[in-house]
């Protein structure tokens, strides 16, 4: 009995030592947690790792309009600090929506390239630069070699790299099954919004599929869309959820 207690004490002590050696402070800074326990536990380190590439695509028609994927990514970018570089080929973002999830227009620098290759090059350059909050690229194709380069660039500078995959036609979206070097891969599909007691549209809900995560298990989550600070929450199907975030409150 006493020996068991003693060994337990030894174990905790050892654990503390190891945690100190690993530097928990550093580890906290090396990931960006969602603040949602169920999702964070699925991700190694407890959140989206900085210095890595993360791929996000929309499901269904979202693969073409990329609205939910962009907003999901915008919410992640809003929770970082520092400038955000957003590379794309055609600018159809409506920025007021991103300002509503806490991404201030002063923080975001857009780089509009005329070709997909130009976007890849600027994306890599921005990832290598270091010191940015996040770098976002909207891409149609992401070949293995390109993603590898991007992942390495992100690892070197410790910048959060976010890719919004977006296609011109629904048939092309099968490209999302091809392997890339990205650390995580997400698919965000729209779901009917949270029911309200009165007619109207409640907080938007998404089905977030974590399709692939390096050194971790994937999962599916029903989440409430980003609030005024870019945070998501876990949503249940229950009709009477009390917490309506700022956005939907403004609607009522």
């Amino acid at each position, binding site marked *: 009995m006493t020996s068991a207690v003693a060994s337990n004490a030894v174990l905790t002590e050892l654990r503390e030592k190891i945690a100190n050696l690993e530097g928990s402070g550093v580890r906290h800074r090396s990931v960006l947690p969602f603040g949602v326990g169920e999702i964070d536990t699925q991700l190694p380190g407890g959140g989206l790792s900085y210095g890595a590439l993360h791929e996000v695509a929309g499901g269904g028609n*979202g693969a073409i309009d*990329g609205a939910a994927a962009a907003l999901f990514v915008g919410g992640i970018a809003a929770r970082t600090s520092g400038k955000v570089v957003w590379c794309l080929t055609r600018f159809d973002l409506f920025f*007021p929506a991103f300002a509503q999830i806490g991404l201030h*227009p002063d923080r975001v620098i857009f780089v509009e390239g005329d070709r997909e290759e130009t976007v890849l090059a600027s994306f890599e350059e921005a990832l290598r630069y270091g010191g940015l909050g996040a770098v976002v690229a909207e891409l149609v194709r992401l070949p293995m070699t390109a993603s590898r380069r991007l992942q390495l660039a992100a690892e070197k500078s410790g910048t959060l790299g976010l890719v919004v995959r977006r296609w011109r036609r629904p048939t092309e979206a099968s490209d999302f099954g091809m392997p890339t070097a990205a650390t995580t891969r997400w698919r965000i599909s729209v779901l*009917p919004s949270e029911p309200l007691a009165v007619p109207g549209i409640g907080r938007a809900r998404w089905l977030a599929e974590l399709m692939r995560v390096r050194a971790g298990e994937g999962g599916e989550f029903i989440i409430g869309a980003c609030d*005024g600070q870019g945070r998501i929450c876990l949503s249940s199907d229950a009709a009477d959820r009390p917490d309506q975030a700022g956005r939907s409150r403004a609607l009522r």
Partner: protein
Amino acid sequence: MVIARSGSKRWIAAADQAATKLGLRVGMAAAKAQALVQRLIMIDADPAADLQALERLTLWALSQYSPVVAMDSPDGIVMDTEGADHLQGGEELMLSGLVNRLRGRGLAARAAIADTWGAAHALARTTSRKTVIVARGETAKAVNRLPLSSLRFPSEAVAGLRTLGFATVADLAATPRAPLTLRFGPEVGRRLDQMFGRVAEPIDPIRVAELVEVQKSFAEPIGAPETIEKYVTRLVRQLCLQLETRGLGVRRADLIVHRVDNTVQALRVGTAKPVRDIAWLTKLFRDRIERIEPGFGIERLSMAAVLAESLVETQSASSLIEEQITDVTPLIDVLGNRGGQRIFRVAPVASDVPERSVQRIAPTADEDGATWPMHWLRPPRLLARPELIEVIALLPDHPPVSFTWHGKRRRVKRADGPERIFGEWWKRSTEWIAVRDYFVVEDDTGERFWIFRSGDGVDADTGSHKWFLHGVFA
């Protein structure tokens, strides 16, 4: 109208558009012109002052457009714009911008871009259009029909050739060279070859006295990219040292490559704000070194700060809390010098009309913290122009029951609205009473859209009462 004189002869040296319309031509005797038109305003030509003005204009072009600029006396400027047009948004934008800026100063200019100096010279002087761009390798086709006078021959040679029945460049190009040379001298053949690019014609660039310039000559021509890079780095270091003593920072810097075959190649880089940072400038040049074609070797490299502004070093405040926001200007410069992309930020405009509420501003513009009003939900993607949809809806205030977009019919399950947006009658008189009613609708699969009805649903004057889809929600 400008009158030139030689001895007692007086003739028209230049005439403006109004005069040309009245039938006056350059070269006409002044007395004849006076007989044709009453109250003619005549100014004596002053070639020396013209030359000075042209020189000033050339120096301005040097700081704005291209590293290799020279006067093409008496009436033109020649520039080698290769490797510099990207800073102005490409050849077309650069050319139209140049002509417009000159027009703003009251100068009627015509500009042409071609493979060779000769061809550009001829095209700019003969075309009736404001700007001409000849695609790479199409010079021969473009100049064939031009008159002989555009070929930069002495006037006697032009007159002589006309007498012999030659009218265009093509006529002359198709004639055996030997008899021509025998009669008119080697000049004719040389000018033709220069126009078609068979003989190189380097531009001797103009330089200002106070230009900050460093150069390096090589006893043995260099060509390997690594060697070029090494010397470029050294030149940047020298340039920065010189700039530091004068308290300046670069806004535009040129690298001019002199090759052993007497041709000149130039690279220009621009920065968003004055720079004196060695690593930063080196990076800007290093990105573009691959564009240099060493050919048989490079014998001289020179680097100049064409546009420099004063730069005062500021001490950065260090704070105990690590909350430092990295300056992104170097990254903006690197991306901006690549070409093929636009870099911008977005900023709010005080307008209720969604497509007018966002403007693009320079990435380095001041951050004023302004943002949009947050009362109403906005879609993350806005269609470039609203798309017409077919709708079943109860007028005037109800959201639609169903709508058809891209041939797919969607039943509306939930909706929010209307949010009424009025036309900006204080800006556009056509929007005097225009109204849009915006609704957020969600169909049974959960997809959310932003649709509006043009008009208030009652009064037909407020809009067509057609429905449009304007944005996609997440």
